[in-house]
């Protein structure tokens, strides 16, 4: 019999409005989470999940401002007004952006920070550091600076920092967003273990993912209110269609194309190339492969084979259609590798070829060097001479701004790219390079229609006057994507554009990619959603991580 030490969560008619906004983000939310229960809150980008997580932590409105309505209680106390010590012991929260919550700079210090604040004895803190870093498989990096870690490893550090607090309630906001498959599987096991200890869990995500399937109860948020509530199996059985419409499940084939056409979002070019296939359903069974099980050529091949029946109904991407391909590859990588000045290897040698009008996925476990590889191509890191060829020509010595004429690059963190005060200005920025409205040349009709098409496809047409920083995380990603696509270029490199995205938003990304591919561009997409993206791709470059042999480039026929 498990002793239920978990916190009880009670919400009655909870609503919330940010300062300066006119409409509430959340309204009339009422629910109770019993001690020891695992509840998954799912909702598309902008549905209010993150706001709910911050309300539960008390951070809103305590220090983030805004107005909360209704009653919110954790074991009978209001987190916004109760003493901080009581709140921290009752609940620990993982926020959406890992970089925003790593405050100490060294991995082990991040884990120690919370317990130190709660006056835990040094010996016990050491024990918790070891336990929490072991749980996220980062014990061997305990003395490393956080900035030397990859995005997924930073996410895992942030998870470890919350684990070390050992609260009675865990709130995880999009914890799996940039985790590789093995780390996601480990995270689910961890959640089960925490629940096994009698603790309460609330996990939030943008899809009906494995965490939602493993939870006892799923609450679906849309536009700030609950639309569905029940055990996952029951929701999947009864409300599959509604979940798909909300973008939380992949839409059945056929319907997606119709829906997209009805929205008028499909560009003429895309329509010519064939209706956009819907996002392929993920593999339903939870991923159980351990980290050591190399998901290399063999692994990838067998995974795609298991995905095949579910994707067979979908017409294939137009990129796969026969087209006059130039004889010379667009981009060629010849044993491209990179080590940091300290000597630590960030990328082991990779050979790959990318052709024009093709779509390549760049996959690999956390820390295998995906972002490093993309930065090398872009010239943001120095590559060995002769290791990156552009149409046969060595790119060495060509500065970043010149490479930017050929390559569109989208960062993992969209905020870094923002330079303009509103969505429209951000989008058209690349057309004039920062000139004031009076000095810049008039936009041509073609530019204007391209801009409108991109906005429409990204679903940002109604957000033109909003500050990019105020968009939801998914919208920020879409904006940074179309701000690059506004200029037609031969290659676009996208660093984890699908991370934490709901299926509807992913469908938009797919449409945008297909739009530029139809124009003749190639796409190199870093992703932790290879199962979802593989049906669209022409090849996969899989980077081997620690303890594995070498990276492989898998062409379409082997996918």
């Amino acid at each position: 019999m498990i002793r239920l030490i978990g916190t009880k969560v009670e919400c009655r008619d909870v609503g919330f409005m940010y300062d300066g906004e006119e409409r509430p983000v959340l309204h009339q939310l009422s629910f109770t989470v019993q001690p020891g229960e695992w509840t998954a809150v799912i909702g598309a980008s902008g549905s209010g999940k993150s706001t709910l997580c911050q309300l539960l932590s008390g951070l809103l409105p305590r220090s983030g401002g805004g107005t909360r309505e209704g009653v919110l209680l954790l074991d009978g106390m209001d987190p916004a007004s109760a003493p901080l010590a009581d709140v921290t012991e009752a609940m620990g929260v993982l926020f959406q952006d890992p970089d925003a919550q790593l405050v100490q700079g060294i991995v082990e210090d991040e884990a120690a920070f919370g317990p130190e604040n709660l006056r835990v004895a040094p010996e016990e803190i050491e024990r918790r550091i070891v336990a929490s870093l072991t749980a996220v498989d980062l014990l061997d990096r305990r003395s490393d600076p956080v900035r030397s870690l990859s995005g997924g490893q930073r996410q895992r550090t942030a998870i470890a920092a919350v684990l070390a607090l050992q609260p009675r309630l865990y709130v995880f906001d999009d914890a799996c967003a940039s985790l590789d498959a093995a780390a996601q599987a480990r995270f689910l096991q961890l959640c089960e273990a925490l629940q096994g200890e009698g603790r309460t869990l609330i996990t939030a995500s943008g899809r009906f993912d494995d965490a939602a399937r493993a939870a006892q109860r799923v609450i679906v948020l849309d536009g700030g209110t609950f639309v569905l509530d029940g055990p996952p199996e029951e929701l999947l059985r009864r409300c599959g269609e509604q979940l798909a419409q909300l973008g939380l499940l992949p839409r059945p084939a056929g319907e997606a194309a119709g829906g997209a056409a009805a929205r008028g979002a499909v560009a003429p070019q895309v329509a010519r190339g064939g209706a956009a296939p819907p996002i392929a359903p993920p593999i339903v069974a939870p991923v159980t492969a351990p980290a050591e099980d190399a998901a290399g050529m063999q692994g990838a091949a067998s995974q795609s084979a298991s995905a095949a029946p579910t994707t067979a109904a979908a017409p294939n991407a137009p990129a796969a259609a026969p087209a006059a391909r130039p004889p010379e590859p667009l981009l060629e990588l010849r044993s491209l590798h990179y080590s940091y000045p300290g000597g630590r290897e960030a990328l082991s040698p990779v050979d790959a070829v990318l052709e024009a009008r093709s779509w390549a996925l760049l996959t690999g476990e956390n820390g295998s060097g995906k972002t490093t590889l993309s930065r090398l191509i872009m010239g943001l890191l120095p590559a060995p001479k002769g290791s990156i060829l552009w149409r046969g020509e060595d790119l060495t010595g060509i500065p970043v701004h010149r490479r930017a004429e050929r390559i569109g690059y989208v960062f993992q963190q969209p905020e870094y790219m923002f330079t303009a005060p509103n969505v429209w200005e951000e989008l058209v920025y690349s057309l004039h390079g920062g000139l004031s409205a009076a000095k810049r040349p008039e936009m041509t009709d073609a530019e204007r229609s391209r801009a409108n098409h991109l906005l429409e496809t990204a679903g940002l047409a109604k957000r033109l006057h909003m500050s990019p920083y105020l968009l939801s995380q998914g919208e920020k990603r879409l904006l940074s994507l179309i701000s690059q696509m506004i200029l037609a270029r031969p290659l676009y490199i996208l660093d984890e554009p699908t991370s934490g995205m709901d299926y509807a938003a992913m469908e938009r990304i797919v449409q945008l990619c297909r739009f530029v591919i139809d124009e003749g561009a190639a796409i190199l997409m870093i992703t932790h959603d290879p199962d979802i993206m593989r049906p669209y791709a022409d090849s996969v470059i899989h980077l081997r991580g620690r303890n594995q042999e070498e990276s492989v480039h898998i062409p379409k026929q082997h996918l």
Partner: protein
Amino acid sequence: MLIQYRRGSSLLHRYDPLSKLVILLCTAVIAMMLDQAWQQGVFLLLCIGTARFAGQLTWRSLLLGIRLIAVVAIPYFILTGLTVKGETVWMQWGPLTITTEGLNAAGAMTLRMFTLFLSSMAYIVTTDPRELVAELNRRLGVPYRFAFGISAALTFIPLLEQEGAQIRAAQQVRGHQPPKGLMSRIRYVLAFVSSVLLNALRRVQQTAGAMEAKGFGAYPDRTFRQTVNISPMHVISAFAYVLLTALLGWIV
């Protein structure tokens, strides 16, 4: 990252943070007291020697530090050299007069800048901010929230450096060319600085929230995981240095 703690095992690294802080402060006091250029020169060489050999700072990083502060120090030297009045005229060129006294004063002030900067840099590079916070709190009773403020200021510099590098990369990716001509240079710098500040502000806000979510400030005190071994030799040497400073003050 020039001005940032680097792990190491040099003598300065092993010194306890508080004794070392006392020595740093006394160094600053001595630098303020000396008013002859040659005295400042000798003192600066001593400081550089200590940083190099006792702190294991590389010649390269010391040179980078000198170059960084030279941007301010050299114009300052020229201005002071030309404006401080003196009797022994060394050179005259139109309305400009250079006197020996002026050169001496300018030299002393400029060298002092180097000493203050390099000694602080040696302190930061060899002192683990975590240990400093823990010691300030444990031994001197400085409230930990305040002590963290100091350490946050120390870690904020590399953070700004890092954010700056990210934003510069993002701007290059957006096709920003290296600026040519004064106006475009100014525009480039303005756009860059405003982005860095905006992001830094956002970061500070987020960090404050994240610290609160981990119970920062929940209790008036907190525990520290690490313990610092204070050697009596360090305390004695710091005390001796204080006496030396007082003696110098009495002589000069």
